[in-house]
Each structure stands twice: as structure tokens, then as C-alpha cells.
């Protein structure tokens, strides 16, 4: 299995990892969660979603889950995806990176004036 995780993560990969951080989801579930997390600002189509899922599986960030829900409640053929240990570590590192960048920006006086203009 390939272990090739590039940082910074693409927005799609970051959103998918965030969506899977709380629970295992199938493709449509991930799509809905990404929309909900971003307050419908991020729209992810099936092409982007499954392309990213393929690369994330290859990189070991996520894994196919054994979970199959009750066929009466849902389609039992749906494949659920879950975040792996590597995925969690990568997500934590990426969020830390964002946090550090934000801290630097906040410390900068130029950034402060930008924030003042924005707010």
C-alpha cells in the first residue's frame, strides 16, 4: 500500500477527513456532511468525491468499513468509509498547521488591519 501524503492537503481531502472524523459514512453521507460542515459553501460532486476517496484509500488515510446497515433502512450494497489512524494523524497535523498560520497572521499588524477592514 502506498503511503504518500502530501501537505497541505487539498480542500476536498481535508473536508472528507473532517466528515469522517466523527463517524463512518457512505459517499452520499460524506457529501451531505461536507455541505453541512461548510454551511453549503463547499459543493462536492461525485467525480471529485470518489476521485479523492480513491487517492485517500491508496494513501491509507481512510479505509473501507465493515459496517453495513440494515437493508430495510438503507441499501446494504453501500460502501462505508472510515478514517484510519494515519488519517487522524494527518488531519490533526493539518489543523495544527492551519492554527499556526492563523496565529502568525493574527500577530502580524498588517493582518490585523486586514481583519479590521473585513470586520
Amino acid at each position, binding site marked *: 500500500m502506498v503511503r504518500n501524503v502530501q501537505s497541505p492537503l487539498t480542500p476536498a481531502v481535508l473536508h472528507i477527513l473532517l466528515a469522517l472524523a466523527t463517524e463512518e459514512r457512505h*459517499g*452520499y453521507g460524506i457529501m451531505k456532511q461536507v455541505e453541512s460542515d461548510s454551511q453549503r459553501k463547499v459543493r462536492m*460532486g*461525485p*467525480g*471529485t468525491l470518489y*476521485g479523492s476517496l*480513491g487517492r485517500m484509500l491508496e494513501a491509507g488515510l481512510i479505509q473501507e468499513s465493515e459496517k453495513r446497515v440494515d437493508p430495510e433502512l438503507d441499501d446494504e450494497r*453501500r*460502501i462505508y468509509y472510515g478514517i484510519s489512524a494515519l488519517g487522524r494523524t494527518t488531519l490533526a497535523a493539518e489543523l495544527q498547521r492551519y492554527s499556526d498560520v492563523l496565529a502568525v497572521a493574527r500577530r502580524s499588524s498588517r493582518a490585523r488591519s486586514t481583519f479590521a477592514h473585513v470586520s
Partner: protein
Amino acid sequence: MSAEISLQRSRAWYARLLRLYPRQFRERFGEGMEQTFADSCWRRRTEGEGLLGFVVWVFAETIVAIIGEHVTRLRRHAMRDDAVRFLKTVKYSAIAVSVLMVAGILTVMFLARGKTGDDGDIAGVVAPALLLTSVSGVVAVVAAVRQKRAQRRVVHP
């Protein structure tokens, strides 16, 4: 009823579009993508949102993704082809060195035939040549094995 029919038609056309994906990708994710598309259309319909704009957007997005998958696949193949070519060069170079060394050893043995004393002592020449032959042989075998593995990955990625 007509909304139901247009939903089914959109799904059927989307399934046809998915056939343009590389086979391996389609077999792994095609069904899930189709299901996700159908679910998204269904939700938009139940929420009373327009379907046409969404369908056009998803088709365009998927076409871009299909092109991306083919480009990625071609790049990977090109990299593997380069690796196979490199390993072939290493293998044949190592074989050539081995053959030359064996020929050299045989020539030295032939020339030293019948000579005695220091003139007949060819160990100092033959020993390094034999070592180089052995190393070249090992390199050739390793390169051949790795080349076969790389070729298998090209045929069955």
C-alpha cells in the same frame, strides 16, 4: 410522475457517462457514484430545488474528473514504463560485463597455458575478474526479477 421519469433518465445517462472512467476505477466506485448521484437528485427533488442545473453541473464535474483519472493513469503507466526501460538497461549492461569478464578470464587462462613461475600465476588477475563477474551476475538477476515485477504491474495495474 414526469419528475420521476426525468430522474430515472438522468440516472441512466449518468450511468452511461461513468462508463468513460478507466475500467478499474469504474468497477470500484461506479456503483457508489451512481447511487450518490441518484440520492442527490432525490434530495433536491424533495426539497423542491431545480434538477436541471444540478444535473448539468454534476455531469460537467464528472467529465473533468474522468479526464483527470485518465491523465493520472497515463502518468503512472509512463513512470512504470520508464522504470522497466531502466531495469532492462541495467540487466543487459550487467550481462555484457559478465560475458566480457568470462571472455577475459578464458583469454588470460589460454595465454598462461604451459607457463610456470610468476608468468604462470594468473590468480591476481582472475580473482578480481571473477568477483566482478559474480557481482554483475547478481545485478543482472536482481534487475531481471524487478523488471518482471514492474512489467506485471503495467499489465495488471
